[in-house]
């Protein structure tokens, strides 16, 4: 209840020109890490994540007046972050004239050279397993397995029913397990 009250107050402050800068700082402080990791699991590289995160917050700031408050603020921000991240990798693939699956394979290979990545072989294998899933299942798996989001919240972010999300997550886990077993 308190969180809802806090969120309502924060949105009101964001819409008020006199208080919006401080409110925006508070908003970023509150969600930056969660959004960062959500984006990072989609685009992998820190630099790309930084770009997408900044664009996400700028979009939140510019569109706060169109936020209807029917959904939770953080679900709305997650949706923006997800769209920004997917748009980013789609553009990246288009620039390189390859499809998303090819790009994601390349991204996991590039991790070995990334100074901001220290994962071992099994971690890289897990990443490859995740990227072998359909895009929607990747998102569901990340949000549920890593972020431990509730299905209702994921449903708000992705616009998919809870039942479909549960099935999707189950299939994702099974496929990853099979992928890991095959190595």
């Amino acid at each position, binding site marked *: 209840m308190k969180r809802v009250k806090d969120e309502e107050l924060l949105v009101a402050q964001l819409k008020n020109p006199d208080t919006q*800068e401080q409110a*925006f*700082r508070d908003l*970023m*402080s509150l969600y*930056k*890490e969660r959004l*960062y*990791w959500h984006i*990072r*699991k989609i685009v*992998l590289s*820190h630099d790309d994540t*930084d770009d997408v*995160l*900044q664009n996400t*917050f*700028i979009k939140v*700031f510019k569109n706060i007046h169109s936020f209807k408050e029917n959904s939770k603020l953080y679900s709305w921000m997650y949706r923006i972050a997800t769209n920004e991240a997917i748009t980013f990798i789609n553009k990246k693939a288009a620039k390189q004239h390859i499809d998303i699956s090819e790009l994601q394979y390349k991204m996991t290979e590039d*991790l070995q050279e990334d100074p*901001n*990545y*220290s*994962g*071992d072989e*099994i*971690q*890289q294998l*897990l990443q490859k397993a995740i990227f072998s899933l359909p895009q929607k299942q990747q998102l569901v798996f990340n949000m549920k*397995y*890593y972020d*431990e989001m509730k299905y209702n919240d994921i449903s708000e972010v992705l616009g998919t029913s809870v039942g479909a999300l*549960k099935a999707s*997550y*189950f299939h994702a*886990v*099974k496929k*990853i*397990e099979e992928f*890991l*077993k095959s190595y």
Partner: protein
Amino acid sequence: MKRKDIHKIAPKLSEISLKKTGFEIPENYFESIEDAIIAELKAKTLLEKGTKETFKTPENYFDSIEEIVISKLKAEVIQNNTETTIPRDYFDTLEDQVLSKIKTTPKVIFLKSKFIKFLAPIAIAASLLLVFVLNNNSTTVTFESLASSEIETWIDNGNIDIDALSIASIYPEIELNNEIYSASLSDDEVFEYLNEEDLEDIIYEN
């Protein structure tokens, strides 16, 4: 399915550490991210504001742009249709075509046959008419029947070759002084004199 139950269906996955994902971030990244985003936002806002204020459009520009574009398109279609009625390269070759036509020798049309066909009968008829008229105008022209003005005109036109000697022989009673009689007296001077005297009076005196 809760995470603690993952090992039941995915034992391999559950063995992988959730904490050590391998993804790292630069030191103090999260401490400076707000300032970086605020700075970026201000720069973008300033840029957009500057662009909007610097470049302005005429009043109602966006209300009339559709009509302007459609009018131009229609004009272009009409122009294209007009162009299709003129042979390709017509205007490029026009000068050469005109010049070559000028240089070409015009075709000679022989009028001989046409002349014989149409003019000869007319000429014959005209000749016969002239003979007939002349034969009927056989009235004798006398000096008395001429008006003095006709004679003057005839002399003015230079149709008479007369000198002082001729005048003296015609008019012996007129006393000519040496000056007048001199050979240096030109025809013009004589005619001037005659013009000054009333020729009609002179004729009548005789």
